C-alpha cells in the first residue's frame, strides 16, 4: 500500500502532463482505500451478511462503508479534474505543463 502511495505521489509531483497527474492522484487514492479495506479484513472471515447462514468471524462493515464513500468522493474529484483538463486543452491548446507555463511567465 505504502509503495503504491509513494508511486502515485511521485507521478503527481513530477509528471508534466496534467492527465498523468490525475492518474497519479487516482493511484494514490486506490492505495489509501486498499489500506482501509485490508485493515478491516479477517482471515477466513465472511462478508458481514447476517441471516444468510454465514457465520462469524465477519469482516468489519465499517471499513467497507468508509471505502464506499471514499471511492465516490475520489470519483467526483476526478470527474471535475477531467472536465477542467478538457477546458484547459481547448483554451490553451495543450495540457503539457511546461508549454502552458511559458506564455504566463
Amino acid at each position, binding site marked *: 500500500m505504502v509503495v503504491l502511495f509513494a508511486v502515485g505521489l511521485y507521478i503527481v509531483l513530477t509528471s508534466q502532463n496534467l492527465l498523468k497527474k490525475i492518474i497519479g492522484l487516482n493511484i494514490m487514492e486506490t492505495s489509501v482505500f486498499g489500506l482501509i479495506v485490508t485493515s478491516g479484513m479477517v482471515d477466513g472471515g465472511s462478508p458481514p451478511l447476517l441471516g444468510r447462514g454465514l457465520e462469524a468471524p465477519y469482516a468489519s462493515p465499517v471499513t*467497507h*462503508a468508509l471505502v464506499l464513500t471514499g471511492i465516490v468522493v475520489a470519483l467526483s474529484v476526478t*470527474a471535475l479534474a477531467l472536465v477542467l483538463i478538457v477546458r484547459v486543452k481547448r483554451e490553451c491548446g495543450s495540457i503539457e505543463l511546461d508549454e502552458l507555463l511559458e506564455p504566463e511567465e
Partner: protein
Amino acid sequence: MRSALALVLVVVLAALMMAGVSQLPPPGEADQAVHRHVAANYLADGVEEGGTGNRVTAVLLDYRALDTYGEVVVIFAALIAVLLVRSAGGPRTQPPPRRVPVSPVVDQVIRLMTPFIALFALFMIIEGHVLPGGGFQGGVVLGALMILLSLALGPDRLRGALHTGALFWLRAVAPLAFTVSALAGLGLVGWWFALPEPGWMREFALVLLELAIGFGGAAALTGFFLSLEEDIHR
C-alpha cells in the same frame, strides 16, 4: 532537477510511512482493535435492530447516515460543478460528430444486452440491504449502461430523450430523497436521519433510499460523460 528532488521527497515519505504502517496490528487477526470495538457492536445488533442483513448497508444508511448524506451531496456538487465549469457554451463549431464507428456486431450485442444489464442493476439496488450490493454499486452499473447506450445510439438521441428540465430533477433526486428521509426520521423517531421502527416501514425506507442513491449515481455518471463528450467535440 525537479524530478530528482521529488524522488528524494517521496522516498523519505515512503520510509516514514513504512515505519508507521508496520506498527499497525497485522491485518487478518480477528481479535485486534478494529473488530472489537465499534464493528462488533454493529454486527452484534443483528437483524432485529438493524433490520437488514447486509451490515454494510446498515452502517451506511442507518448508523452513519450523515456520511452517506455528505457523500451524495459531494456527487451532486461535482455534477453541477462540471456543468458550471464546462467551457463556454455556444453553438457547435464542428459539424455534428458522426457516430463513433462501432462495428454492427458490437451494436447488436449492446442492444440485446441492455434489458438484462438494466435488470441486473435494478436487482443490485433493491436487494442491496440483504445481499451484497446497494445504491452506489447499482447506480454505477446503470450509469455504465447509459454510456454504452450513448455509444451505440449516438449521444444526441440519448440527450434528446431526456428532457432537460427532467434531467435536473433526476440529478437532484438523491440528495432530496435523503433530506426527506432525514425529516421523516425527525418526525417519526425524533432524531434527524433516523430510520423508522423495524419492520416493513424500515425495509421500505431502505429500499427507497437505495433507489434514490442508485438513480442519483446513474444520473451523475451520465451527466459527467455527456458534458465531457460534448466538450471534446465542441
